């Protein structure tokens, strides 16, 4: 048991903590050259390049708005579809499941071209709503899948219990289903935010430059040889999913039967 734990800690250190630390160090130092004879140079210039960029804050704002919108819609659609898939049985269910997964299999860009045409006609192009909707394409299949599995794990008996006790559908959802599905909610949160945050091409096509999200500022900088600026951007980029995750974690505490971390309920 202890050996296993040790191996886990070692692997985690090597593959996760070390790279992140390296990234942090890189963002606070000037670019390092092999055999240049220079030692570590502490500097804040990489972040100073970043912050005054007038559109950075605006882009961060839009990224958060889009991410939150995408997350909300994913929760609603994922829970509804996941529950239906795991509790109802009907003809053609396997086909429907495959259809739900298909957006992952078809290149998003191919879908985006066609959808752009439609969105222009619908007046959704160049709007936040349009961007949120297009971000559903690469995220929703995963959400449906995760909630489907989660409901399957809960089992029909657990779901029948509140009905027997006479709870209304929404009451069922908030008092039984959601508290029991916290792990699924956490995975969906992280997955959707990260996927939505890294969409470059479809955001720029549908957002049309009106909605400028972080990757639109970040990705062109991949062409720079200045590794420090890249590292600073990456650190900033990582803050958003982290912050959103913490917010969602806070919201989860509002669910009934949640144990408050500051209260010792043992």
């Amino acid at each position, binding site marked *: 048991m202890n050996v296993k734990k040790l191996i886990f800690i070692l692997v985690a250190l090597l593959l996760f903590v070390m790279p992140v630390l390296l990234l942090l160090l890189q963002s606070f130092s*000037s670019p390092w050259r092999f055999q240049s004879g220079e030692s570590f140079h502490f500097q804040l210039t990489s972040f100073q390049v970043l912050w005054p960029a007038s559109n950075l804050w605006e882009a961060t704002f839009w990224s958060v708005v889009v991410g939150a919108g995408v997350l909300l819609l994913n929760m609603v659609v994922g829970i509804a579809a996941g529950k239906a898939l795991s509790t109802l049985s009907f003809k053609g269910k396997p086909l429907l499941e495959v259809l739900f997964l298909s957006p992952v299999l078809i290149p998003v860009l191919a879908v985006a071209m066609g959808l752009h045409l439609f969105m222009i006609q619908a007046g959704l192009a160049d709007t936040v709503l349009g961007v949120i909707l297009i971000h559903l394409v690469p995220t929703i299949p995963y959400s449906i899948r995760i909630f489907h599995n989660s409901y399957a794990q809960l089992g029909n008996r657990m779901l029948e219990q509140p009905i027997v006790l006479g709870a209304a559908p929404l009451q069922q959802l908030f008092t039984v289903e959601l508290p029991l599905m916290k792990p699924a909610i956490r995975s969906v949160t992280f997955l959707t935010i990260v996927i939505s945050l890294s969409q470059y091409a479809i955001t720029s096509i549908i957002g049309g430059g009106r909605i400028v999200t972080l990757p639109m500022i970040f990705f062109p900088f991949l062409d720079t040889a200045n590794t420090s600026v890249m590292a600073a951007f990456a650190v900033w980029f990582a803050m958003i999913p982290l912050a959103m995750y913490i917010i969602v974690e806070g919201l989860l505490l509002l669910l009934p039967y949640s144990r408050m971390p500051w209260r010792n309920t043992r």
Partner: protein
Amino acid sequence: MSKKWLLLSVILTAFLAACGNTQSNESDFSEVTEQSWSDIENAADGTTVRLFMWGGDEGINQYIDEWAAPRLKENYGITLERVPMETAEILQKLQTEKQAGKKDGTIDIIWLNGENFKNAKENELLAGSFVDMLPNFQEYYDTDDPAFQTDFGTATEGMEAPWGKVQFVFHYDQSKIETPPSSFEELKNWVEKNPGEFIYPNAEDFTGNAFLRHVLYAQDEQPSDIYEQPLDEEDISGTADKLWNYLNEMKPNLWRNGEHYPNTLTELDRLYSQGEVSMTMGYNEARAESLIDEGVFPETTRSFVMEPGSIGNTHFLSIPFNSPNSEGALTTINFMLSPEAQLAKLKPNYWGENTPISLDKLPKEMREKFESVERGESVLSQQKLEESFLPESEAGYVEWIQDQWFNEVVQQ
């Protein structure tokens, strides 16, 4: 039940269709350009202009945001909004908008040249001819300069205004190489003596392809045979053979024995930055300055050009067909072409890029200001650059080199 759904979907479709048609009436571009210049400037006052451009260089971004935007606001009442987007995607967006009949777009100015201009022009994504009506262009530019008349072999027909020009140079580390090679033959000899110290990006990369075009120019007796003629594979087959021979002879002595070519210039720059190779290159004679400042390149970095010369090109600003504010776009472009704006662009603190302006057309005082700009030690003198200038060949060569290089060099 199903009837209800049918009704609903009919209503929804009608609603969407109605949305699609609520487009404001388009102001015809030729009507705009028929106005007098002062009318255009007046109409532009108080408007917002959206400039869509590639955003991967902090110096360029700062030049727009910190230098140009406040001055446009002050002098013309124009709010300039810079939107970072890849040129290919901008054109894709315009193409779809054209298809959808969207007459009221979001883009007022785009920054482009070469292949992108050719695409835009062929697909009628640009508003039309406007360059000749810009007062600054008439006054300070050599309007008949062939560099403004054609863009990688495509006639510009006044649809884009020259904003800047760049020239291809090689960079080397002075502390490692005393005298850089002065011709492609010498480069090959140098590579032989210093195996593993040189590599070029692969042919699909913009810079790698430009390097190969230089070699092609060098293998021909008269480089003008290449750039003055459209691509004819049979005509140049002799030169092409020499080109592939040259590259294949060099290959075993390249970095990693030529088994791997950097995919992008960025990769090559990193190799150079880490001292793995001793030379890099790039399509901008002044680009090493900011990289040295940031500490990415060693301070001993200098640049050089080789016989027969170095290829240069002009890049342009243009107005898309569905610009919602073409008066503002015209005023802004005219401002970007002004001597003041070009001078600030030349100074190394923001962008440090060369100007297409004609120095002898400037008033004496202004000319002296241009001539006194210190572009930095890593930049070659204006005279040297002008002497070695070679024009770009037709856009068709780019693709031809891409395909052939893979067959003739990589697979050998």
